[in-house]
């Protein structure tokens, strides 16, 4: 199973800023291994964010996103104690979900 994400959700004013680090190879499909064989593309293709169980944002990613991806966005009206959940699925069907409380 994929390693856990690191999610930080910090409330300030009328919003919470969410910063996410995901553990993923994000292999572009453009590289060759030492034997000269193409390394197949392997990347997170979809990301979903929810606040207290309601989806607030989805994203579709391609192989151009960097290894161990970082994502930052802000949820309006989120307060301390609210639950922010992030989940991703990659092009091999592997997936991961993690949740934090807004601080």
């Amino acid at each position, binding site marked *: 199973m994929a390693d856990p994400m690191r999610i930080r959700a910090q409330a300030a004013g009328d*919003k919470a800023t969410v910063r996410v680090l995901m553990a993923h190879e994000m292999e572009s499909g453009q590289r060759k291994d030492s034997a000269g064989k193409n390394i197949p593309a392997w990347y997170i*293709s979809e990301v979903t964010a929810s606040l207290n169980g309601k989806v607030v*944002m989805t994203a*579709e990613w391609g192989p*151009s996103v*960097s290894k161990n991806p970082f*994502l930052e966005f*802000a949820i*309006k009206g989120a307060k301390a104690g609210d639950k922010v959940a992030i989940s991703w699925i990659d092009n091999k069907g592997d997936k991961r979900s993690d949740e934090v409380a807004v601080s």
Partner: protein
Amino acid sequence: MNANRRQLLSHSATVAGLLLASGVLGKSAWAAGAAAGKGAFEARSLADVVKALGYGAPVESKDVTITAPDIAENGAVVPLGASSTAAGVKQMMLLVEKNPSVLAALFNVTPEVESSFKARVKMGQSSNVFAVVVTEDNKVLFAQKEVKVTLGGCGG
């Protein structure tokens, strides 16, 4: 490969469903790919990405801001940001003009989130990068900046 593709597509459908449920429906880059046979992620230019998503021609606009460094110390990780002051934003995208896959990331925006995203992308060489916004009335606005990718370290 095919199995992966199917899984991906079925998941895309789920996401689309979620979006529908939350009252927003932007064009899905992966789903559009399935329908058109050549998706937004395979498109080779800004114009083609937008076309693959079924929108009209993009227009450069002051309502969109792109943040990117002038120089990247390493093309493996280039921090990009897109934000917009436009009303009714439903999608935002980050693109790298000279990458094999020009479209790096597409965000489906709901009224619950701000029209502002930061992510990090790979760049094979110096290139223009774009922040693109699609509004609810299907206007496509963009901002661009050139990022120089430098050779670093001992180079060995």
